[in-house]
């Protein structure tokens, strides 16, 4: 037993009050339901209950936070929140504990450059702001956000701006909005990261900084409504923008358009597909049915995976894990893709660029029998709009 283990931990009332101010961890009675439902706990990577308890102790011993079991492995999927009988927002606690680790500079290697990229470039990809519009290749007219005076802003987000796979989703969505006569604008070079990654990693200061920059650019554009592609932007903008602007996920908007008859879908019915609930859309914000209604409107039949909606298994990409090599044995995405394939579906649809990246990165996804697509792309095909 190392020496730090044998010496008693000295309780800090100040850190405790700190935790109480920022989270509702005080009411946790340590039943362990969170751990019992955590997909990482199942892999021995994280003990949520213990993490909360550790949080209560304020990590009084130096070196504690970085080696806290699983503090940085947590994907913030919020499965723990679903079962908590005390209604604790455990994800909030994880963010708080990560924040404490930043204050003591006890963070895993590789995260600091990531935050510098966010700070300097306004995105986690170290890409120049000038290239934010590259995704628009081939778009023109209303689909290129040329509707002057429109109060709706399509917030593309860093991933859809820079990641070639996600760019396709963005283009499909832009064309769908144009097809439904929804005037919208784009922020272009002025779009900055929503700050979701710093937020999930506990860098609260940087998150606040980024969201105030995002708020400023939205205000300048005269936006009253923001449509996001990534559920992560959806979550972070909702947290960062207070009530000044209405933030919606594109699946909610498309659902409205289709059910209101403004967007016609039909044509060739999509093949049998299954739908994966992104954590930040489903569990975090309760949007389960809009994407499903959209998929069904195309004539597709959804073959549900055993774990769906509140119990959907995380893809493994949240909570900053898109930028860290997973130290897990067996990726969550592998398990999820297998689960999807077992439904008999030939298409795995989801509504989050992180999920798509994770699923496409799995070994089994490459076998070709399962196509991973975004819901927007499925709708675009059914609406006769190019989804490329």
């Amino acid at each position, binding site marked *: 037993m190392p020496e730090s283990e044998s010496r008693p*931990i000295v*309780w800090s009332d100040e850190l405790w009050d700190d935790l109480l101010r920022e989270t509702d961890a005080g009411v946790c009675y340590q039943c362990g339901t969170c751990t019992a439902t955590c997909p990482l706990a199942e892999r021995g990577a994280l003990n949520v209950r213990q993490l909360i308890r550790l949080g209560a*102790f304020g990590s009084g011993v130096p070196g504690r936070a970085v080696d806290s079991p699983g503090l940085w492995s947590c994907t913030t999927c919020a499965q723990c929140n679903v079962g908590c009988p005390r209604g604790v927002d455990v994800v909030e606690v994880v963010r708080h504990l990560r924040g404490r680790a930043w204050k003591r500079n006890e963070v895993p290697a590789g995260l600091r450059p990531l935050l510098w990229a966010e700070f300097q470039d306004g995105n986690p990809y170290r890409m120049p702001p000038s290239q934010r519009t590259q995704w628009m290749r081939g778009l023109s007219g209303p689909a290129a956000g040329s509707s002057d005076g429109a109060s709706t802003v399509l917030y593309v987000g860093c991933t859809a701006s820079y990641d070639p796979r996600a760019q396709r989703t963005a283009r499909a969505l832009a064309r769908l909005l144009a097809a439904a006569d929804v005037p919208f604008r784009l922020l272009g070079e002025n779009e900055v990261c929503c700050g979701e990654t710093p937020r999930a990693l506990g860098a609260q200061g940087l998150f606040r900084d980024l969201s105030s920059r995002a708020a400023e650019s939205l205000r300048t554009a005269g936006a009253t409504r923001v449509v996001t592609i990534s559920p992560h932007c959806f979550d972070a903008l909702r947290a960062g923008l207070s009530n000044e602007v209405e933030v919606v996920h594109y699946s909610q908007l498309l659902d409205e358009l289709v059910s209101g008859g403004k967007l016609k879908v039909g044509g060739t019915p999509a093949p049998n597909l299954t739908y994966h609930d992104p954590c930040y859309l489903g569990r975090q914000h309760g949007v389960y049915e809009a994407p499903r209604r959209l998929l069904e409107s195309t004539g597709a039949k959804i073959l549900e995976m055993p774990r769906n909606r509140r119990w959907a298994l995380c893809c493994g990409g949240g909570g900053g894990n898109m930028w860290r090599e997973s130290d897990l044995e067996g990726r969550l995405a592998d398990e999820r893709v297998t689960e999807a394939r077992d439904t008999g579906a030939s298409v795995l649809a989801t509504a989050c660029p992180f999920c798509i990246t994770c699923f496409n990165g799995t070994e089994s996804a490459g076998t070709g029998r399962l196509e991973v697509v975004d819901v927007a792309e499925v709708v675009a095909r059914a609406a006769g709009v190019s989804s490329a």
Partner: protein
Amino acid sequence: MVRMAVEKASLLQPLESYEQPMVQAALVVGGGPAGMAAATSLARQGFETHLVEREREVGGHLRHLDQIEPSGADAKSLLTAMLGNLETSGAKLHLGTEVAQIDGHVGNFHARLGTGETVEAGVVVLAMGATMVRPPEDYPLRSAYDLETVTNQRLEEMLSWGRVPGRTVTLVSCIGARSDERGCSRYCCSSMVGQALRLRRMGKKVRLLYRDLRAYARGAEELYRTAAEEGVAFFRYPDVPAEKAVRVVPGAVRFHDVLLDRDVELPTDLLVLVCGLVPEDPAVAKMLKVSRSSDGFLLERHPKLGPVEAGSAGIFLAGTAQGPKDLGESIQQGLATAAKAAALLSRDTIEKEPLCAVIDETTCNGCGRCVRVCSFGALEPYTVDEGGKKSKKVRVITAACMGCGTCAADCFRDSITTPFFTDEQIEAQVDAALSDDPASKVLVFACNWCSYAGADQAGIEKIQYPSNGRIIRTMCSGRVSDRFIKRAFEKGAGAVLVTGCHPGDCHYINANSWTGKRFEIWRKTFERRGIAPERFQLEWISAAEGKEFAAKMKEMATVLRDHAAAAPPPAEAVSAGK
């Protein structure tokens, strides 16, 4: 089985119920909330009521409280209200004195108080309360080790003044409770969570160390949640007595946090010991022969069927004298005793079931064996002077006798008769049961309260078991005499099974302990006479244990089969051993 009933019926005699005069007055011993509630209620119903309180004021522990948890009600106003009700109820208060001497039985108790006054009462309510445990030496109650230590009672006083020393306060639960025979003190969790919350609202840093947290009263769980929300920090210490788990070091307490699995130190200015309740050792309960449970608190007749009654009629138990409980529960129990007592007091006389033992004084030689086994003190030795020749006798105090029959089984001279369960009647049942193919029969003696009901339960649950059992019911297994066993084996019974309530559950206080003691002797005796031990067994079966009863009967059937397979001992062998 029909024949058994018919044979018994042919010997039945008409019985007359007894009537005893009832002194229509109540004596309540102890003036805490339970006693106050009982006395107020009885007096308001018009009964002459005497409340005896050792202290010069009534109120008990309530006098020392500021706020009642979990409701947060003001203790002083409650006490004032209860006192007002008591004073206007007409109850006679005897303050600053104790019951020095008490005897008697239902309908007729005589008490002498320390003041010399005497009180006659038909019923007695025992509400002497319990004591707060004295903190062990490990926690010196003074400023030491750079921290101050107080009890939760002292803290309550400090809270009532609104002045509590120190910035950091640590409360430790279960001091003196939940160790050895002693169980949970029940009142303390809600109380300490409430205290912790009040401290927190005064701006203190508050930590609460618990072994288990049992916030069971209405509103207590909500109070616990509020305390947690407002920042009281909760810690669970290991499942051993607090004095072993929580150590005081200079300026702090140290313990092993179970939920973190690490040793933890809490810098502390004020240490609060949340003390459990321990039973008093009241002389009055001893004089009334009220049993105590293994934890030392007064034992009720039955946890469900007689929760506020003592084993003997006319004596009722209220408040923490009967077991640790919170204020609300104490008052409830006080009111419950008043209701039960009033049911007796409302009549001029009390009618008793005519099961009371009868002693034939022509044959009784006053040996006193029966006096020893009576749990109710219902047998009284006396001396008669027959023409100058003094001889000892025993008589039955009919009011005190509960009719268990344990005395009759112990009388060498067969001088004691228990009506409806006479020797002749039971023997007629034995004979009838064994009149046909006795070797295939298992004769079962079952007590009225537990094992007979247990056999019934087997039937209710539709459990299949062999049909060769023949059950003879007595009020208590203590009624079973060795002459019945002997007779059964003489008649060639395959096996005999004596059953009764589990030890500690006896409906006649502890009469079945005599069954146990006697059985040990009988088993040896009958074994010497050639009865294999498996053919003569004792089994405790509760009213709920239908399954266990059926299983035992199956086992006995196997015993009979094995016995039949081996060569049975000739019946004469048993008789020869006479």
